């Protein structure tokens, strides 16, 4: 049978070419992810399709995790250890934190091994390698979306009024995705070189979980430790979400700006690290 080719297709991209010079980074490498945005979509779709194809509960799993965690945390920290958050319902308070945390945790844990798991692909075909970890970060974003809808439902259920302040959730969650992408890119690149990452990552995540005001309010942190908290963009996201959802106030502008800048700097540095190490991926993976 005769095959039509992409050349005869009006939507086909013009054919591209490249020059590789030893020791010189390919110019325009940044832009290649944009040309390959269809690939990013394909990897995301693959991830979602594979994840939910054989799981009977499907997307419900995405909601079950933060809800179950919120229940356990409430039992342990509120009922047993009597951590108090004023007159706020502790379950809702902790779910607000867990919403951001479960996304970060799932995306990073999922994205870090993607390069190694796709070693066969990396050894055979060139494509912008960052598409693999970033696709996971974006695919898990679907869970974050559902989690946010549940958060809004819970706010309504507990009688918190909706206002335009809730629109702050968009930039706050964008900061969250940026930090997550940064950690995912750096982690995935380092994981190719050092398989230690597999063992170090759960430990680091556990430390970060307690270093972020999820089960406790940021106000409980002593003043001399506060700068450490402010440098963690996750803490700015969690605190901000609580401000807009539970306190009916805008997030602290200075801290939010610091969090956004921090996330951006992390992302650029992680991307540079990734592009620096990617040249050797196929040789050492």
């Amino acid at each position, binding site marked *: *049978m*005769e*095959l*039509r*080719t*992409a*050349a005869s*297709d009006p*939507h*086909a*991209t013009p*054919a*591209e*070419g*490249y*020059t*590789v*010079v*030893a*020791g010189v980074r*390919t110019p325009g490498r940044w832009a290649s992810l944009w*040309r*390959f945005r*269809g*690939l990013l*979509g*394909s*990897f995301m*779709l*693959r991830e979602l*399709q*594979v994840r939910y*194809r054989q799981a009977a509960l499907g997307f419900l799993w995405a909601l079950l995790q933060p809800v179950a965690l919120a229940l356990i945390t409430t039992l342990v920290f509120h009922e047993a250890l009597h951590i108090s958050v004023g007159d706020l319902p502790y379950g809702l308070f902790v779910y607000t934190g867990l919403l951001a945390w479960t996304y970060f945790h799932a995306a990073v844990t999922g994205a870090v091994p993607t390069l190694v798991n796709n070693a*066969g*692909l*990396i*050894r*055979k*075909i*060139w*494509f912008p390698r960052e598409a693999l970890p970033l696709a996971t970060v974006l695919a898990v974003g679907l869970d974050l979306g559902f989690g946010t809808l549940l958060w809004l439902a819970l706010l309504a259920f507990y009688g918190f009024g909706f206002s335009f302040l809730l629109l702050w959730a968009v930039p706050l969650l964008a900061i969250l995705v940026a930090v997550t992408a940064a950690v995912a890119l750096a982690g995935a690149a380092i994981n*190719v*070189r*050092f*398989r*230690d990452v597999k063992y170090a990552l759960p430990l680091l995540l556990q430390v970060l979980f307690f270093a972020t005001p999820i089960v406790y309010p940021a106000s409980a942190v002593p003043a001399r430790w506060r700068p450490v908290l402010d440098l963690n963009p996750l803490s700015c996201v969690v605190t901000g979400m609580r401000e807009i959802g539970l306190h009916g106030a805008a997030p602290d502008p200075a801290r939010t700006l610091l969090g956004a800048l921090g996330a951006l700097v992390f992302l650029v540095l992680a991307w540079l690290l990734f592009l620096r190490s990617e*040249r*050797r991926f*196929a*040789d*050492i*993976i």
Partner: protein
Amino acid sequence: MPAALELRGVTKQFRRGGPAYGSLRDTLMRLLHRAPSEGTLVTAVENLDLDVRAGEIVGVVGDNGAGKSTLLKLIARITPPDAGQLTVRGRLASLIELGAGFHPELSGTENVLLHGSIQGLPRRTLRANLASIAGFAGLEEAMDTPVKFFSTGMYARLGFAVAVFAHPQVLLVDEVLSVGDQGFRQQCYDTIRKLQAGGTAILFVSHDLPTVAALCDRALCLADGRTVHTGDAASVVAAYEASPTPTDELG
């Protein structure tokens, strides 16, 4: 018109024997003791020059370990050269391992979309041409089946169809066509000829010497990463066949 594929003084070295990846501990110990990296440096491709013009098929022959696969990886920018430079003009597709990008749990259709976009094709272009790709692969009936149920031949046919659909200006072929049956191989050779007629520059790596002699316009013979014979395909194949067979079989 400049050549579609151009290599100038390309060299690639590998460290063999040392740990390619490893634990942080090994690296820290090496840094602490200022020990040089372990392993010996092996030159896989040395100072190679090559031009393949549009509409030309160039064969590459040589023993295992001569640098043929490394050469293809360098051109496909999977691995970077240590010296020299190379240029690819236009879209490149490689038949290095047919179906390398396929995911076993996904259906044939989903894999065409995935594999095509790995090659840089927009998804809607692929979706618009699904029937044509499936037809070329002879898999109209199987496109909704997860490819984990495909046979090796079906896998290869679908991979080949997607790669050809990309309409490359430069095509790399490595030994892969041996997996299919006689009919599939014939279809592949016919398609390669058709791409050649359409102006695709083709680099054809194979141990199948009669095919190289018949299919290629020119050929080069590699030994230890260097070009030892070059010229018209038949005479290079004859020169390679006349050379003594080495015992060393490093892949």
